């Protein structure tokens, strides 16, 4: 006779496992990374009785987690992308906030140039000159405040990079340990322990949120985790830490490296918070700081150039009005040679906004931009004939040896260093340096204007000895080419119109001309003067470009965040549809196993009553 009791007991035990699993599932309904577990049953081996078989109950074959490797892998990759998008959106949001705040450079520029115009309206008025200096000070503090905010953001990013590297290391470490536990559990128990696998998957997901990783499952139930182009984070029970190390050119800038190998991973990291931090730093923050610096350099260069074309209240030629730093040159820490590249800006209009490296291969220097594209240079790099490229002029050190390299950032520190040099209102050069009078009997249509050529200035008379020849101060005849300036005595005389024989122009140094506003008017025009990008973009235009550049980065990041959140939700929903706990389902299962349990108990009761009946029959 088939052992009904044993069969009943097997049912009871099976239902208990079922009930326990339901309880476990319900208990872990809110556990991050938990996969619901299912009980697999199999019928026990039947008992052969002559020509047929009688079943002997149920075996619990396995308690498995509901799991799809494919869906989990998609979830990890979606986590990585959405975490990157989140971090990027938050960082670009911060820089956008900074630009929309009170430090609006355009407003400062407008007030400054407004004050220049007011000075032009009342050039001898000390009050308006003082206001001009105050506005210049305001402009300086706006530049410095924006640059300071960018720098603060930069050190915040640096801090976050360090934090991300720390969490990555801690996750790798935990994953390696779990690898060991899982491997030994399988070796002793045979089946993989679901909860440990879940825990490891959850760690991989957290790791993906920090950095994009590649996960390769191994035959021994461990996983290998790679970052970037094959830098191993976890292999078996071994974890490999990442670290931060100073940039070879700039010791204050931290790069991500493999702790053991020391190889720089910064450019190869993608995805996750760390990827966003690296991207933000190199593609949003650095260009913004450079563009701001370029704006400062454009303003200083154009304003100073015009200021030097005027004379101040003391009759002296206008000195430097603004000061601004030139290119930042940093030698690589790996350089073996001596000396540094001496770089300066030769032409503001040709500045590109890119950073460059200049490297020496022994015999030849090459210049590359940050994308590694080679940049053609003019000149030979000596002090007499410096290398020229991208608006820069560079003198290379004689002590360089092959393999040395230098990084040149043309505008990085410019905004922070922007300052007003003039502090005495009398020193504002509002007047023209020269007074020109046309001869009273001139018959031609020419009118003259003059600019300084930088040399010592003295007066002079330009006398036309025919329509095409002239003499200066009674000297030898020289040929006049229409449109070409006449250079003499420290000035260039530019004629418009046609001179005739006998016409004369007398140039005298302007003296005592405190009411002259000629140069102040020209200074006012600097506001809308094309300075950058080959003389097309004005100072204000450069700031607009910065705003739209930063704004675009923000808008793209916001869009990306929306998209990636949707992708993540999709991946998470799919993964949850397989692995997530549904309480209604568990409630139904609870009822199911409860009923099975009660039924099996009933089988035992029945077996018992059959046995009792048999006993009482025997007792008769």
């Amino acid at each position, binding site marked *: 006779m088939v052992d009904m009791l044993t069969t009943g007991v097997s049912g009871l035990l099976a239902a208990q496992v079922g009930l326990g699993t339901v309880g476990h599932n319900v208990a872990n*309904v*809110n556990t991050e990374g938990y996969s*619901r577990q299912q009980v697999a049953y199999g019928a026990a081996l039947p008992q052969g009785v002559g020509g047929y078989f009688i079943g002997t109950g149920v075996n619990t074959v396995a308690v498995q987690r509901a799991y799809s490797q494919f869906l989990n892998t998609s979830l990890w990759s979606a986590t990585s992308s959405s975490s990157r998008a989140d971090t990027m959106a938050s960082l*670009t*949001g911060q820089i*956008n906030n900074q*630009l*929309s705040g009170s430090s609006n450079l*355009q*407003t400062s*520029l407008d007030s400054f*140039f*407004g004050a220049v*115009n*007011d000075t*032009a309206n*009342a050039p*001898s*008025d000390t009050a308006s000159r003082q206001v001009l200096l105050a506005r210049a000070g305001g402009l300086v503090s706006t530049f410095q405040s924006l640059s300071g905010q960018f720098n603060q953001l930069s050190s915040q990013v640096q801090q976050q990079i360090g934090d991300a590297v720390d969490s990555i290391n801690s996750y790798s470490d935990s994953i390696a340990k779990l690898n060991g536990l899982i491997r030994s559990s399988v070796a002793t128990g045979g089946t993989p322990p679901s909860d440990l696998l879940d825990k490891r998957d959850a760690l991989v997901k957290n790791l993906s949120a920090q950095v994009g990783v590649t996960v390769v499952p191994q035959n021994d139930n461990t996983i290998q985790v790679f970052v970037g182009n094959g830098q191993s984070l976890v292999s078996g029970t071994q974890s490999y830490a990442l670290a931060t190390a100073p940039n070879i050119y700039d010791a204050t800038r931290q790069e991500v490296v493999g702790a053991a190998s020391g190889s720089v991973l910064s450019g190869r990291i993608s995805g996750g918070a760390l990827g966003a931090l690296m991207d933000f730093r190199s593609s949003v923050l650095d260009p913004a700081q450079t563009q701001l610096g370029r704006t400062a350099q454009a303003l200083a260069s154009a304003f100073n150039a015009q200021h030097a074309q005027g004379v101040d209240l003391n009759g002296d030629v206008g000195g430097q009005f603004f000061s601004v730093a030139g290119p930042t040159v940093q030698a690589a820490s790996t350089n073996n040679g001596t000396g540094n590249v001496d770089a300066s800006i030769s032409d503001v209009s040709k500045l590109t906004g890119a950073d460059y490296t200049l490297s020496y291969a022994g015999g030849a220097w090459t210049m590359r931009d940050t994308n590694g594209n080679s940049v053609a240079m003019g000149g030979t790099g000596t002090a007499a004939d410096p290398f020229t490229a991208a608006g820069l002029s560079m003198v290379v050190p004689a002590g360089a040896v092959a393999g040395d390299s230098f990084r040149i950032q043309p505008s990085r520190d410019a905004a922070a260093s922007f300052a007003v040099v003039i502090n005495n209102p009398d020193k504002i050069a509002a*007047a023209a340096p020269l*007074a020109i*009078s046309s001869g*009273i009997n001139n018959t031609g249509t020419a009118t003259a204007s003059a600019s300084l050529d930088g040399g010592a200035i003295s007066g002079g008379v330009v006398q036309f000895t025919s329509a095409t020849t002239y003499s200066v101060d009674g000297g030898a005849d020289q040929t006049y080419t229409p449109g070409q300036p006449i250079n003499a005595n420290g000035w260039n005389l530019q004629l418009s119109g046609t001179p005739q024989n006998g016409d004369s122009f007398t140039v005298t140094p*302007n003296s*005592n*001309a*405190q*009411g*002259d*506003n000629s140069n102040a*008017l020209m200074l*006012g*025009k600097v*506001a*809308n003067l094309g300075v950058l990008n080959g003389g097309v973009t004005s100072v*204000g*235009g450069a*700031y*607009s*470009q910065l*705003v*739209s550049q930063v*704004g675009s*980065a*923000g*808008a793209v990041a*916001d869009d990306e965040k929306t998209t990636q959140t949707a992708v993540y*939700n999709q991946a998470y*929903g799919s993964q*949850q*549809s*397989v692995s*997530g706990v*549904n*309480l*209604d*389902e568990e*409630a*139904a299962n609870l*009822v199911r196993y409860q009923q099975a349990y009660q039924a099996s108990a009933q089988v035992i009761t029945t077996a018992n009553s059959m046995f009792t009946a048999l006993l009482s029959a025997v007792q008769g």
Partner: protein
Amino acid sequence: MRVSTSWMQQQSIGSMMDRQSDLSNINTQLSTGKRINQPSDDPVGAARALDLTHLGTDTAQYQRNITSANARLGLEDQSLSNVTNVLGRVRTLLLQAANGTQTDDTRGDIAAEMVQLRQQLLGQANSKDGQGDYIFAGNRTGTEPFASQGGGVAYVGDDGQRMVAAGPGLQVATGDPGSAVFGSIPTGNGKFAISADAGNTGSAVAGSTTVSNPNANPSAWDGGSYSIVFTAPDTYEVHDGGGVVLDSGSYDPQKGGSITFRGAQIAFNGEPEAGDSFALGASQSQSVFATLDNIINVLQTPNGGDSKMQNAINTQFSNLDQAIDNITRTRGKVGARMNALDQQAGLNDDLSLQYKSALSDVQSVNYYDAISQLGAQTTALQAAQQTFTKVQGSKLFDYLR
């Protein structure tokens, strides 16, 4: 599809968060009135808004410049108006002085008044603007431009002319240097001047002079130096600078008449003596103060009203008229400038309005749109909240009690 319980909750919470964030955005837009609150809201629009704000500020600055220029030009016009009155009085007095009924004494009285008028004129030429700058000093606005020197008046300003930026690419002069207003005034009729030789003994007086056919090109008047020599009371010769006789003719000493040569026409009356001569030369420049000084000098010199005096008065009369003409022309220029400034101010106003409306198009929130969005999003948030409570409230476990 299976849905996990915690995911369903997360999703509901997530959608409520999203709706709240949308509401917060709309709230910011409505409270600032701006559609673009940071550059990422609309990168192109944000840059455009900056440009438009800059253009608007520029235009406002142009308006300020125009206001300041108008003030300066108004002062100049006022000064010039006073100068016109003074010179008008001088002219009236000179006409009186030229009258044959005057005696040396009465001419002396007239001269005394003219000395006062000269002082008044000097005061006007040295007038200052609101900032204490001399109006007619060119660029040397800190120094009194017309200084009394050795009995005369010297101009120590320069020829600079202050300009103002009144619009993009438009500069308008806000003053005239004293040299152009009071200093360099051509003598005679503006082309040539005639003066009687000091040794003349006849009673001939040179009157009005004209350049015949003034618009001909090249002008018939060649700007040379000539002299008209009366060889007898009724005949004359024209000599060039070297004494070569160029022309000759007859003159009616009773009726007077005009002598014309090389485009110059001079009216004479009175009877010349043989040998009397009149020098003719291109106009020189002379300051209005020199003209006044000459007039005063003639009037103060006792001469009994002879032809010498008449000739001298006639010469200075032309010079005075040139000065009055010059002041009138300058006032005309000032008026034209103020007119140009007014027109530019109107244009700037239009531009300013245009920039403001463009700026508003770019960055202002559309209230109708925003308020309807606010309504829609409030509804969406409420729907999400209600859905959450409904969905979370129906659990199979609830029925298993």
